[in-house]
Structure formats: structure tokens, C-alpha cells
């Protein structure tokens, strides 16, 4: 097991390294093809003073001549970038000149809190609906669950959110405040935007909405794996042992279904990250997603690259955890 963990860790590091290089190379290419983003600093069309331009170029690490040769991988600036990241220096924002590393320490916990709620929602809904559909296989409930989850999954998460913000949030908030008062939990939970004074309460609804990303996929997975286990020989053995239905379900069906479900949750995580971009942007949650959302609108390439780097690290970590969990959950996996 120990050697397996080490091997997986090294593999994850290699993937991260290549990903960082890919991100860097794409940035370099964009500078080489489209021209200098430092010009943006001067607000587009105006031709700035060459001396100032050179200064700005130095500030953003664009003074290397490799940025003038299309296709050049710019290894020098890449090493520099890695060194900066390792030292915790992620650059500053064009807009407001704030330290990106500092912003990350605020943004990442907010996004994590969003994900706590979305993951809980996703797993609970998928387990309940998938189990229910598997029990009523081929019946009305099976078809309804399938149709409903596909429908929910078909509606893009930002549209659910827009519909919520524009149509439901205000009346629900007013209704709740009439009964429980503005400062109560219920008075805050339905708000159409994030409120930093209530960092947990006002993140519940967006979390639940992000939790619908991948619902159809995961429900389908739960249903299929439960059906496979329900019809398996070892469940027949469990019945022959005179176990109660409840125990058979928990010990022999759900426990065995956990293996594909863990993989499924890990897999949908990457999609939920995309969902977070628009969710946080629309709800005004100061997290990684909103950072990317605003970076796109303000054309701050560096912020996008940092955002994607964090995303990549998260996805690699989640994949790693899923693989290790898999090894714990399924004793048949060999580690060598």
C-alpha cells in the first residue's frame, strides 16, 4: 500500500507539472500571437511611451525576447513562474493592484464551503433517488426518477440560479422575514446574493443548486450499481443466511455500491468547479469561481491562469483521494 501511495503521488506531481507547463505555453503563445497584454494596462488603443512599456513588461515578466518568437516555449519565464508560485507569489491584480496570493487565502475557503453543501446535496439526492429507482426497476418511479434527474441536469446550473435570483429569491425572502424576522436564519437563507455577515447561511442555497450538476449521471450510477448488487449471488447468500432486508441493503448492497459512487463523485467534481464560476459570479460569492468570472470580464489573463492552476491542483488532489479511497473500499485492488 505504501508504495502504491508513493507512486500515485509522483504521478500526480508529474501531471501537475505538465499541466502548469501547458497553461504557461498557452499564455506564451497568446502573447506571441496577439501581442503584448501589458498594452491593456494603458487602456487599449493608445501607444504608450516605450520606456514605460518596458517597465510594465518587466513588472509582468514579459520582458523576455522569447515572447516575440511564435512557438517558443519560453522555458526561462516558465522556471521563473514556478519559482514565484513556490514562493507564494502569484502576482498582483491589474485592477486594484492587490496581491493574488492574499486573495486566494480568502477565496479558497469560500469556494470550499460552497462545495461542502453541493457535495452533500449531490450525494444525498443521488443515493436516495438511485436506490429508490433500483427498487422499483422498470416501474413508474424508475422512469420518473430518470426523467426528473435528466431534466434537472439538462438545465444549466447558472440558469437555475438566474431563475432563482430573478423569480423566487425575493418573494421567499420577504415571506420568511415576515415570519421569522430579517436577522434570523430563515430570513437570510433565501437571499438572492451572498452576505459576508452570514457566511454559512447565505451559501446554502447556491450550494444546493451547484449540487444538481451531474445529478443524472450519479443517480444513474447508483441505480446501476445497486441493481448489479441486488441481483448478485452474494445477496442471495445473504438472504440464505437469514439476514434481515435492512441489513442486506446496508451491509451487502450499499457498501458494495460505494465503490463506483466514489469514482462518480470525484468525476462530477470537475464539472461542479465549472458550475461554481457562474454561480459565484451571479451570487457575488467571493470565491475562486467569482475570481475567474471577473478575470474573464476584465481580461486579466494572469488571474485566469492562477484560477486554472488552483482548479488543476484541486482536481488532481480529488482524483488522488478517489484512487486511494478506491483501494481502501475494494480489497480486490492490488497495489503493485
Amino acid at each position, binding site marked *: 500500500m505504501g508504495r502504491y501511495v508513493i507512486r500515485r503521488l509522483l504521478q500526480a506531481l508529474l501531471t501537475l507539472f505538465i499541466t502548469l507547463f501547458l497553461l504557461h505555453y498557452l499564455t506564451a503563445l497568446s502573447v506571441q500571437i496577439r501581442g503584448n497584454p501589458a498594452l491593456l494596462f494603458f487602456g487599449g488603443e493608445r501607444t504608450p511611451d516605450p520606456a514605460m512599456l518596458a517597465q510594465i513588461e518587466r513588472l509582468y515578466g514579459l520582458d523576455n525576447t522569447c515572447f516575440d518568437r511564435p512557438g517558443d516555449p519560453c522555458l526561462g519565464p516558465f522556471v521563473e513562474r514556478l519559482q514565484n508560485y513556490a514562493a507564494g507569489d502569484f502576482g498582483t491584480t491589474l485592477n486594484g493592484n492587490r496581491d493574488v496570493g492574499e486573495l486566494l487565502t480568502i477565496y479558497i475557503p469560500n469556494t470550499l464551503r460552497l462545495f461542502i453543501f453541493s457535495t452533500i446535496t449531490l450525494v444525498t439526492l443521488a443515493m436516495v433517488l438511485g436506490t429508490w429507482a433500483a427498487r422499483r426497476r422498470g416501474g413508474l418511479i424508475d422512469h420518473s426518477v430518470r426523467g426528473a434527474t435528466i431534466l434537472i441536469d439538462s438545465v444549466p446550473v447558472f440558469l437555475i440560479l438566474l431563475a432563482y435570483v430573478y423569480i423566487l429569491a425575493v418573494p421567499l425572502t420577504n415571506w420568511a422575514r415576515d415570519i421569522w424576522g430579517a436577522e434570523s436564519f430563515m430570513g437570510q437563507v433565501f437571499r438572492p446574493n451572498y452576505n459576508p455577515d452570514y457566511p454559512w447561511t447565505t451559501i446554502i442555497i447556491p450550494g444546493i443548486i451547484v449540487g444538481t450538476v451531474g445529478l443524472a449521471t450519479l443517480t444513474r450510477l447508483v441505480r446501476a450499481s445497486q441493481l448489479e448488487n441486488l441481483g448478485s449471488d452474494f445477496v442471495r447468500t445473504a438472504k440464505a443466511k437469514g439476514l434481515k432486508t435492512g441489513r442486506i441493503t446496508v451491509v451487502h448492497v450499499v457498501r458494495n455500491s460505494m465503490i463506483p459512487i466514489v469514482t462518480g463523485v470525484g468525476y462530477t467534481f470537475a464539472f461542479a468547479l465549472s458550475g461554481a464560476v457562474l454561480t459565484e459570479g451571479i451570487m457575488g460569492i467571493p470565491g475562486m469561481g467569482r475570481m475567474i468570472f471577473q478575470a474573464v470580464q476584465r481580461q486579466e*489573463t494572469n488571474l*485566469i491562469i492562477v484560477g*486554472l492552476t488552483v482548479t488543476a491542483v484541486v482536481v488532481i488532489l480529488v482524483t488522488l483521494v478517489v484512487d486511494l479511497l478506491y483501494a481502501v473500499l475494494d480489497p480486490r485492488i492490488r497495489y503493485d
Partner: protein
Amino acid sequence: MTELTAPAAGADAPQASLWKDAFRAMARRPDVLFASLIMLFVFTMAAFPGLFTDKDPTRCIGREARGRPETWFRGEHPLGTDAFGCDFAATIVHGTRPTITLALSVIVLSVLIGMTLGILAGYFGGWIDAVISRALDVFIVIPLMMGAILLLSLFRGRGSSGNLLETVAPAAIALTLFGWMEFCRYARAATIETKNLDYVTAARCLGAKDRRIMFRHVLPNAVVPITAIVPTSLGSVIVVEAALAVLGIGVQPPATSWGVLLSNGTQWAGGGYIYLFGIPLGLLILTVFSFATFGDALRDALDPKLR
């Protein structure tokens, strides 16, 4: 070479019946028929917009702006007019083509790339597999939409000229670059599985060439799981396009797509012109739902043990 045709025939027969059975299973389901009708409607709208509207979406009269569709589906403006006084029905109908073209081109390119790499990796193994698998690992780390955001921001254009190719190409390239991985994984897995089947080993022992084995045995088996995920993937490309449009980096104005219409519609939804948001929203959801339902049924039909 006569000996070689015998195992090949044995392999083709179950393939043919697999597709036939799948078709039969699909044709019996009412939800699939409904989804097919919607898909047919949308594809027709993309291919022949003239069948659905005789208005020009670029001919706009300012003083008719934001005319609510009081005469639903009839009259001068069947779905009213948009914020600039253009006929909204015509805008929607003509916005279908970029949307569908984008989705189709992304999927076709992704399938081609993913299947080629997947079959090569699975069939030859060794260093080819190592390189392709590493590339898979790296690209999978960046979710489809994030990758598209990155590329479209880095290589942001200056607005399109209205030519369909130029309108769609940037988004199509960005989405393809980060969309081929799933197809590659399925193709690779199916190839490895097929490669080790007894009749393929037998064919190889009898001296069949790599290319022959790949086209006769491996390809037909790799096509099955890939076909099963194509409709659902089409739907998700449409969704991502809409999300990119909301971010302002998808299909660029003056060209329209459903995403662009939705993104414009959000500004008016709160102000009482809900149809500007609701109609493209309904159309998008209905389409994506149809693709997903069709894809779900197709997966069941092609993989009967999960039904």
C-alpha cells in the same frame, strides 16, 4: 486469406444484431420518440431556417422594439420583437444554426481525435500509450468549460464578421481541445478489451495485419461506447456555449446563438419582458433534455445489462 474471413464474419454478426436490437429497443419507447421529434425539429431549423420564418433577423425597426408577443405564433411578429426591434422568432430561428453547427463540429472533431488517439494507445500500448495517457491525465484536470474560458480569453478576437465559420471556429476549437478526452478513454478501454479477445488473437496469429485488425475488429467495438455518449455530449456542448455567452466570450456579436439570446435576455427578464429570456431558455432546455433522454436510452440499448 480465407481462414481470416471466418472469425471476422463471426465478429460482425453480433455487431449487426447489437445495433438492430438497440434500434428496436429505442423505437418502442415513447420518451425516445418525443426526444427524436424535438431533435428533428431543431436540426431542421438549423438547416432550413427559411421554413420557419420569412423575416430577416437583421432588419430591425427601432420603434417596434420590445413588442410583446400578443398574437402568439401568428401575425406580424409571432414571438414579438427584441430590444432593437428585430423579429424575435426570426432571431431565434437564425440563432439555431450557429448553436447546432458549433455543437456538431465540436463533437465530430472530438470523436475523431479521441477515437484515433484512444485506438492507437489501446492497440499499440508501450510508449504511445504512455504519452497519450499522460496527455489524457493533463487535459482531464482542466474541466471543459474552464479550458474554453482560458483559450477564449487568451485568444480573444475582435468580434466576428458574421461569416458562420468565423463566428463558430474559436469556440469550436477551444471546446474540442478540452473535449476529446472522454471519447479517448472509452475508445482506449474498448480497444484493449477487443485486442485480447480470442478471435482477434486468432486473426493475429494467422498473420492479419495491424491495419486490418484495427478496422475490422477494433473499430466496430470502439464505436459502440462512443456512440452511446455522443447525444449527451452534444447537449452539454450547447450548455457550455450558453455559459460562455453569459461570460461574453462565446459566439461573438453581431452573430447570435441561443446562448447570446439568453445572455441578452437576462437583462430584460426582471423588467417584465420575460419572453426575451423565457423562450430561448425553454428551447435550450427542451433541446438539451431531448439529447440527454435520447443519449440515456441509447446507452441502455447498447449496454443491456444495466437496463
